[in-house]
């Protein structure tokens, strides 16, 4: 046997569950066991400039209130805990998001963010530019596995 250097696969999913608080704790929030944060999904116009550099939710560039869409977007369903698939930490909301009676022109981006923790950004997801007119916009989540999960720490 030989030792092999590497990041613990379990650590990758535990990071997403708030198990570890490394460093001096400057940003460590108070938590209650069994009480998850609320994660929301907000939609942005194609003219916005969200990226991996985005640190928090902002209303700048967000689509306007329309139908069932309200500023900030709606909470995503998180019935399935982050886990590992092979050596990859994975997380995918357990249900899609749907907005009805909705109208918005030229949007192409969804920001996942933690509304319980100062609206801190989690991930930015882009798709082809969509225009919805008095209709329904549905965002379906991919399979929750190492190849497809919405958030992956490889």
């Amino acid at each position, binding site marked *: 046997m030989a030792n092999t*250097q*590497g*990041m613990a696969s379990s650590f*990758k999913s535990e990071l997403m569950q708030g198990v570890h608080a490394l460093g001096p704790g400057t940003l460590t929030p108070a938590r209650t066991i069994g009480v998850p944060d609320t994660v929301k999904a907000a939609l942005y116009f194609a003219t916005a400039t969200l990226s*991996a550099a985005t640190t928090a939710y902002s209303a700048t560039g967000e689509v306007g209130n329309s139908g069932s869409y309200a500023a900030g977007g709606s909470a995503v369903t998180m019935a399935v805990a982050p886990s590992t698939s092979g050596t990859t930490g994975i997380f995918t909301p357990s249900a899609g998001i749907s907005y009805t*009676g909705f*109208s918005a022109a030229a949007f192409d981006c*969804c920001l996942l963010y933690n509304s319980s923790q100062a609206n801190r950004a*989690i*991930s*930015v*997801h*882009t*798709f*082809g530019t*969509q*225009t*919805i*007119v*008095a*209709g*329904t*916009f*549905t*965002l*379906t*989540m*991919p399979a929750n596995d190492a190849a*497809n*999960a*919405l*958030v*992956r*720490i*490889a």
Partner: protein
Amino acid sequence: MIETIYGLQDETMLVKTTGNVDNEVESTNWVEYRNAAGELVHRSAHVTVKGAAVAASTVGSIG
């Protein structure tokens, strides 16, 4: 009946168009309805996201 910018309208009075996009970042199906004047009065879309946020991880050597 279809929900439009003018309220509910009879589908038979509208021109329906559907389409889909399937690439590395999304699988999308859309439907739109236009009235006799060619005006877009309804459009819906169903997007399945494929473009995930992936972070690579590594650890450094000690010493």
